[in-house]
């Protein structure tokens, strides 16, 4: 068995301590940089009185972004965020088209052409007691 003399031991100790403090410092910097401010992201959007959106209307709500549809079944909202990498899809012939990599979706949000792998999301919509339309984009 080899023995460690005092000089080698101190060298090893110094090296080890320096590495450790370096790693701690790096970890601190990474934590520092990864801070995200408390989200101002809204979990619900109040779109105002429901009678602004008559039966048969399709309204683009750019701030979500979503398409608010009012038909016989009531209010529905389709998210316009492309499920591929998050660009906003555009209404196009036969549904929706994404400007970024050409995904296409039919009017019900199903993918008709890739690269997107998942359908557009339907968002929960409610009409509250005051008669306002509320969309919940998070759920």
């Amino acid at each position, binding site marked *: 068995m080899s023995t460690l003399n005092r000089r080698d031991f101190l060298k090893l100790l110094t090296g080890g301590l320096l590495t450790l403090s370096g790693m701690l410092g790096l970890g601190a910097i*990474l934590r520092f*940089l*990864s*801070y*995200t*401010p408390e*989200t101002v*992201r809204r979990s619900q959007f109040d779109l105002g009185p429901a009678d602004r959106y008559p039966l048969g209307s399709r309204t683009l709500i*750019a*701030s979500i*972004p979503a398409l608010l549809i009012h038909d016989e079944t009531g209010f529905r909202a389709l998210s316009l965020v492309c499920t*591929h*990498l*998050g*660009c*906003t899809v*555009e209404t196009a012939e036969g549904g929706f088209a994404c*400007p*970024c*990599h*050409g995904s296409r979706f039919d009017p019900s949000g199903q993918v008709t052409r*890739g*690269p997107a*792998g998942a359908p557009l999301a339907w968002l929960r919509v409610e009409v509250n007691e005051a008669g306002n339309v509320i969309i919940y984009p998070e759920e």
Partner: protein
Amino acid sequence: MRPNFFHHLHPPTIPAEQARWRHTLGAGGTAVFLVLVLLVTGILEMFYYVPNPQEAALSVQRITYHVPYGWLIRNLHYWAAQLLLIFASLHLLRVVFTAAYGPPRRFNYLLGMGLFVLAFLLDFTGYILRWDVEVCWPLVTGTNLLKTIPLIGDFLFRLAVGGENACESALLRFYTWHIFALTLPVVILGVWHAFRVRRDGGIAVPPPALRPNPERISRFELVRREVQAMLIVGAALVVLSVLFPAPIAPAMIGQPVLTEEARAPWFFLWVQQLLKWGDPFVFGVLIPFAILLALILIPYIFPPPAPQDVGRWFPPSNRLAQVVITLIAVFILVLTLVNR
């Protein structure tokens, strides 16, 4: 003649054969000159640029349309940045095609690859700093791409964006990366890269006994040629800047506008094309990284070039490396052209 400071940055003499334009293409030297132009024009732009989502695009408009010669400064910065990617690529191709990466230059090749990657990151962050309606989708897709990486994806996203929504909060991050956190490493690695060229014995040449032409040129002649190149490139930059202004679009304020078609900046058109083919992680992260890794590993996985082949165009002993880098270049070029 007494050598001045700039002469002293060069070796007293270098082999005449390898000092010719048709050997070096002047690519590395031109890249250095372009970085100097970028530093100077970039600092000038900082006097007016406001890294605040509300004002950024307006401050770019101010530089372009109101500040005296602001258009020239901005266009020079733009063109120097685009040319830097081209000359850095040429330099990389030259180094591989002239078998100049073998031991003892392997480490310096790594430094060069680091600079290469940094140049692309700087071009992309600089492009985002325009903060006009054209940059939102490339920013969204680029940063969402980070999220697709398993385990560290979310962390990288936060590192890059500093918030939830890229088109609202990424500006200050990108500004700091662009101005400082990427630029400082470029300067340090750049100086190190140049130092290592000298340390590794200057430009790659065959050992003296195997050199067909023993002639050498002095540092005076070398500096004279470098100055000549700088003048030519400088003039070309001015001409480009006067004739072809840097792109600019209406300010991105509030919600991004809807567009028929969103295009990546030209140097990432090939990635955008890849992304059209399927899973974002595979096509947008794995494949580009595999290509980068292949480039980085060239000096390590292929047998070192034969001594008499070092510093010669298209020598037989590193054919494999030449083929690989040619395939990569053609692949990227074709994808870029196909994406329309």
